[in-house]
């Protein structure tokens, strides 16, 4: 059984509860030309997670960046079934929130988004760690190994 190690409080932006393994970028992330919707592979040549895959993961990155078409790229990635399970940002932005809300309206897919955590989660966990994201309560749970 999973053993709860820590609960970190933040702000729930979009609702839902999921548990999954983490993938972490320490840089601002762009969805427009930054991810291949057909696979979920990261294609931005300047990204620190180039060639890694976000599909079905809890995707952690500080901020969004890039073109205002990013919400369409992200929405397409979700439509193709290659979207992340949840997103954790330091401070989220409209491109990301818009895509997640559209995914719910169009395809009935819910992706919890939490930001403004009390501490920097990317320092505490590493790629592949199992965590829970609760968009309803606005918190993240970290489990012991």
């Amino acid at each position, binding site marked *: 059984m999973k053993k709860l190690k820590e609960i970190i409080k933040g702000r729930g*932006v*979009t609702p839902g509860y999921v548990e999954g393994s983490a993938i972490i970028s320490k840089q601002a992330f762009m969805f*427009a*030309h930054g991810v291949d*919707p057909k696979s979920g592979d990261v*294609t*931005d*040549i300047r990204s620190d997670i180039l060639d890694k895959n976000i599909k079905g993961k809890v995707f952690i990155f500080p901020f969004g*960046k*890039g*073109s*205002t*078409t*990013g*919400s*369409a*790229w992200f*929405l*397409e990635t*979700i*439509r193709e079934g290659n979207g992340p399970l949840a997103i954790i940002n330091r401070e*989220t932005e*409209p*491109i990301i*929130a*818009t*895509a997640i*809300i*559209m995914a719910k*309206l*169009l395809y009935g897919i819910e992706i919890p988004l939490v930001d403004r955590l009390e501490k920097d989660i990317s320092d505490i966990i590493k790629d592949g760690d199992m965590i829970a994201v609760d968009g309803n309560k606005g918190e993240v749970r970290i489990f012991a190994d």
Partner: protein
Amino acid sequence: MILTDEEKGILDGKNGEADRLAMELLVGVGESFGAKKLISISSAHILAHFGSLHQAGIDFLEKLAENGGKCKVPTTVDPSSVDFERWEKFKIPKDYMEKQKRLRTAVEQLGVIPSWSCTPYQAYNVPRFGQNIAWAESSAVAYANSVIGARTNRTCFGLDISAAIIGKIPEFGLYLDENRIGSLLFELKIDKFSDLDYHTIGAIVGKRSGAKIPVIKGIPKDVTNDQLKCLGSAAASAGAVALFHILDVTPEAKLKDPFDGKKPEEVITITQKDLRDMENMISNAEPNSRVEMVTLGCPLLSVEELKTIFDKMKGRKVKKDIYFWIYLTKETYDLGKKLGLITPLEKAGVWFSTQTCATISPVKIWGFSHIMTNSAKCALVTPSEHNLKVSYRDTNECIVTATEPL
């Protein structure tokens, strides 16, 4: 967020399904970003090019159109991914064209003005100072906020058409006075400005500013609207600049201190050498490798810019082993034709294309490995979009590279 009874009614579906969906998105985003209310907008500018929207974008726009959505405010649309008239000449695959046509049908059903232009402020959608608008297209956002003093965030796909249908947008970000204050000062130490320099200054400012608001000192007072258009497009694509102030030039900086009495966080000097360094950084091609295509018109050309190119092209024709593609609005093309600027250039081998551009059309299918442009935005965006190398040069060098004497 506090909603009026009318807005609550729309959320409950009183105005039909399209309005309900649009309102849900506006309220959802507004709640996420601490907006207290929705504010009325006077115009919108939306995205509808298949290259970035994909099937998901078609799904959303068609859903709104099929459910009776109509724009409540004048709304224009950014360039298409294909030239609707010349798509076969540009080797656009038929299925790709069909997707773009579905987007065209949807936006026309929604009552969008089919301008297919990234420069709506030059025709059909000209905001006034201080008006709230909801625009997408980073270069147009930079122009509207900065040069005109209208107010918009970088409105993303989805939020753009929802705002157009409801005629409102959540009040956050650049709609609020306190978020329009400058924080970085750029001092130009440059005597003489070429057209390319405005792109390059924009690229430097964008790269150094990120999402902060830059204030620029030292731009000549007689700078043209086209030069400001180019500066803004570069700043918006090199960083996330949605608003810049230029001392003695842009309206908000003329009316009051753009730093609101505070000291700039940082003062950054830009010299002639900084321009040359940035030019070299933007170009990523081997200096001696052969250029296969030269492109002008990012942002899309105005009539004045077309005139300049026409003058430089006198007595020259396009070389046999190179493509020379020039992008402009449909209106510029038609007006240019009346002025006798188009036909001679077409005879000289130039390929004009309207309502699209090299940056957002599927140029990849041509398999170019090296192109040249006089636009910093095009040079910054195209390599990752089309997997090719770019040389960034001024208009003269672009023309000399693409053409030879008659």
